[in-house]
């Protein structure tokens, strides 16, 4: 055997440096890896969602199958002329159950939205301020990425959690509903619930993640950012409530939760349950919130890049 000695010296890089299709992908990837290391937080924050999903699945199942059994049991007995009425009653009951389940599901998605907010607040509050505090922006902005890339990467991390919280349970519930509804009536008649819910999840996610990143870009520390998010949301609620109830209902638009609430029902094409905000105003409210958030974040990112 020939002897070998390898002197460890600097080696040139022989590979290629290519521009990825999406430049900020490594930020998302690395950021998620870091976030997913926090086992306890994941458990704590996802457990309620998982539990709620399971419980709700059981309820939906029960509603369709168990309830259905009862009312179906009413059906077959009775006279022929009664059969017709009974059939109608059964169908009515089925439709009623379906509508009830749909209403519940909307409320469930809304609730998941709030759970998503907690998740995003926990995992995404530090995304910008911790980088600034550690000085890591100096390394990021020396790489071939733009400020927009950086923002999109961080945005994607926050969105991951929000969409996980809102869409995964939705998928489960929809499957349960589809399977347990008689003759797939859920899928046949209420299938549009799914795309609407996805759209709503996107609207909610975009808004919440933007607000959290806004807080993160302004706060010196993660804990401040988290408090800031909740403070802003609650304050806007309080302000809109006060002004809306005592001066002019139009002021309700100031509450971002009110706006999202109104949009929720609009997206699902159902009557609004909660503070009445006209749809046009609600969209405006959300748009203004997003616009302002992104504008301030852009300013803060510019400042991070430029100031040593």
């Amino acid at each position, binding site marked *: 055997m*020939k*002897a*070998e*000695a*390898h*002197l*460890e*010296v*600097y*080696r*040139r*890089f*022989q*590979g*290629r*440096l*290519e*521009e*990825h299709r999406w*430049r*900020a*992908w*490594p*930020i998302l*990837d*690395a950021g998620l*890896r*870091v976030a997913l*290391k926090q086992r306890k937080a994941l458990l704590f924050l996802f457990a309620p969602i998982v539990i709620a999903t399971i419980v709700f699945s059981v309820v939906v199942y029960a509603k369709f199958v168990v309830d259905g059994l009862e009312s179906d049991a009413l059906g077959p007995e009775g006279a022929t002329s009664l059969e017709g009425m009974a059939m109608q009653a059964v169908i009515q009951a089925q439709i009623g159950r379906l509508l009830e389940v749909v209403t519940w599901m909307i409320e469930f998605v809304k609730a998941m939205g709030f759970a998503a907010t907690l998740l995003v607040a926990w995992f995404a509050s*530090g995304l910008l301020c*911790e*980088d600034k*505090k*550690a*000085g*890591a*922006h*100096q*390394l*990021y*902005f*020396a*790489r*071939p*990425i*733009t400020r927009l890339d950086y923002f999109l990467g961080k945005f994607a991390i926050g969105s991951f959690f929000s969409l996980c919280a809102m869409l995964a349970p939705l998928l489960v519930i929809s499957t349960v509903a589809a399977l347990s509804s008689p003759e797939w009536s859920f899928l046949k008649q209420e299938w549009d619930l799914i795309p609407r819910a996805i759209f709503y999840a996107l609207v909610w996610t975009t808004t919440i993640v933007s607000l959290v990143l806004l807080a993160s870009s302004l706060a010196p520390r993660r804990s401040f950012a988290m408090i800031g998010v909740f403070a802003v949301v609650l304050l806007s609620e309080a302000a809109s409530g006060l002004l809306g109830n005592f001066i002019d209902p139009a002021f309700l638009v100031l509450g971002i939760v009110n706006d999202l609430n109104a949009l929720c029902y609009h997206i699902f094409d159902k009557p609004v349950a909660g503070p009445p905000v006209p749809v046009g105003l609600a969209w405006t409210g959300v748009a203004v919130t997003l616009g302002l958030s992104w504008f301030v974040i852009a300013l803060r990112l510019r400042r991070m*890049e*430029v100031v*040593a």
Partner: protein
Amino acid sequence: MPKVEGEGEPRADSSGSAAELASEAEIHAAAPAYLPPPGPGAILAFPPLSEPAPVLILEGLEKRYGSLHALRGLTLALPPGPTGLLGPNGAGKSTLIKLLLGQLEPSAGRARIAGFDPAVPAERLALRRRIGYMPESDCLIPRMNAVEIVTALGRLTGMNVRDAITRAHEVLDYVGLEEARYRGLDEYSTGMKQRLKLAQALVHDPELLLLDEPTNGLDPKGRKHMLELVHDLGHNQGKSLLLCSHLLPDVERTCERVIVIHKGTIRSQGTIHELTRREESWVKLEIDGDVTALQRELTAEGLTHEPDGEGRLRVRIASADGDRLFQLAARAGVALSELVLERSSLEDVFVEALAAGGGTQ
């Protein structure tokens, strides 16, 4: 037959005759991109190579913040190789670095690095692939260990995952971070953090390295190691360096050229060798014995001399004439324990450049 691998790609084939080994050794001993200047008092036996293409060109580069002129009309053509960037605090060094990285846009003028202009967004990203930056202050990405940080930054620069991981381990080997690379950064000493900062600047094998106070906070062992790495990168690995440091002897040890900046202008630039060359030739002596006896001999020979501290003298004499001094010392009955050619220190160059005021040398 023992085989030694020098720089470059590992070779699959491990057999080799003596002849093969020699030719491989030749290839791997290829000269770096520039030649170091000849030592003191040497006679050039061959003409110098033509100047290689400059790695950094500044044309009237200016940056203003309102009424504050951070940089005024910097013009410079910097050849490849290790260069020190010196200047008092607030002279404009960080502004210059930000301009080179494309983080700031110039108020006037242009910069070109390896042919790219950082002010042009399209070229800026390509440029950043060829520059490595080691910041002075804390900058390590939180909640990640060393491997993760270097890998993520490598990927952000355009490497695919496999390359990035391999390369991350390679550079961490080079800077000497062993098992510590898997541990959290909370346990890192300053030395380890500085080395990690250097590793992340090297991951994509850039042509030009911007090193900002690399020995900041390091103890003597750490400084020595870091300077060895910097020296290796600049002299053996053919990298161009722009080294910002307040410790002038560090710059002397690792750089061939310096640029002195003050109040936003270049006050002095050139090779260290040229800048520290003295017009007159003085020699410093340390005497073991009766200094006055030697002084008498020197006066008798007509040589100018003056005291230079306890047991030391400065003598004006042609540098090649050391023998004569030994003869005189022997005649005076003393021994010489030091005989060195006096050069300006870089510190003197720095101070003079600052005092001079305005314009380039």
